[in-house]
């Protein structure tokens, strides 16, 4: 399945399509969450308020975005501004008003992570789920095995295989990973 481009999503949101707004939120929720909690390290209550504020501004101002393909940097900018405002309101220092371009938790890294995420969405649902459960939700082999009805002894090999496929998706010229069954 080919996901809609950002500019397509923006156009559909502007046309009032509810499903497009849901898809936009799904696509950018992790990104905004990572900016507010990892780059700016806001405490949970502030982080939730800022998260909602960012999406409220996106919703209100989507018509002002000139280039739909610039959605990601625009959202990043809104998230940075809202985070800095929250830090100032709370009287805390602004630790990273301008996050380092290549810092461990910096925006550049999150942008790279978003590209990996987009490639993950293009894999089979089985691969997407097993990688998401293991790396993003930090679930154990045992939990994954129980949830997906798979022997826990096969989880590691499936994760390795799916990571290989993810790498293939990101590096199209590379010799493909093994095409064993199971995801």
């Amino acid at each position: 399945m080919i996901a809609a481009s950002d500019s397509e999503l923006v156009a559909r949101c502007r046309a009032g399509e509810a499903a497009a707004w849901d898809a936009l939120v799904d696509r950018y929720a992790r990104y905004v969450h990572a900016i507010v909690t990892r780059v700016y390290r806001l405490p949970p209550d502030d982080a939730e308020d800022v998260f909602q504020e960012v999406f409220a501004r996106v919703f209100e101002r989507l018509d002002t975005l000139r280039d739909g393909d610039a959605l990601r940097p625009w959202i990043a900018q809104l998230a940075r501004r809202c985070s800095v405002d929250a830090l100032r309101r709370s009287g805390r220092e602004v630790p990273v008003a301008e996050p380092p371009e290549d810092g461990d938790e910096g925006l550049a890294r999150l942008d790279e992570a978003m590209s990996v995420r987009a490639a993950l969405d293009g894999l089979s649902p089985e691969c997407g789920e097993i990688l998401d459960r293991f790396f993003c939700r930090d679930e154990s082999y045992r939990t994954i095995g129980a949830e997906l009805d798979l022997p826990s002894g096969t989880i590691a090999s499936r994760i390795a295989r799916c990571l290989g496929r993810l790498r293939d998706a990101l590096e199209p010229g590379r010799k493909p990973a093994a095409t064993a069954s199971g995801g």
Partner: protein
Amino acid sequence: MDDTVTPEERLAELLRALPAPPSGWVEAAKQLPAARRELATLWERIEHDELLRAKAIADLEALLRAEGVEPTPTVVAHLRTRLEE
């Protein structure tokens, strides 16, 4: 990139960089369009009803709760700005 890190390990790191936010946050963000429509309706009533406007000025959060609208900071700030215009 650290030469000792394999491409797969690097991918794993990048996957870990974007954990899912709490599902309630995501659902609330998805409800924004509907919430804004509710707010627009409420605002229209406030504009045409002096008593309601007075209640909003006196205690906006209480009015929102009474109308079944969650008084989140974003919603309160949005309405307060309009009340002050």
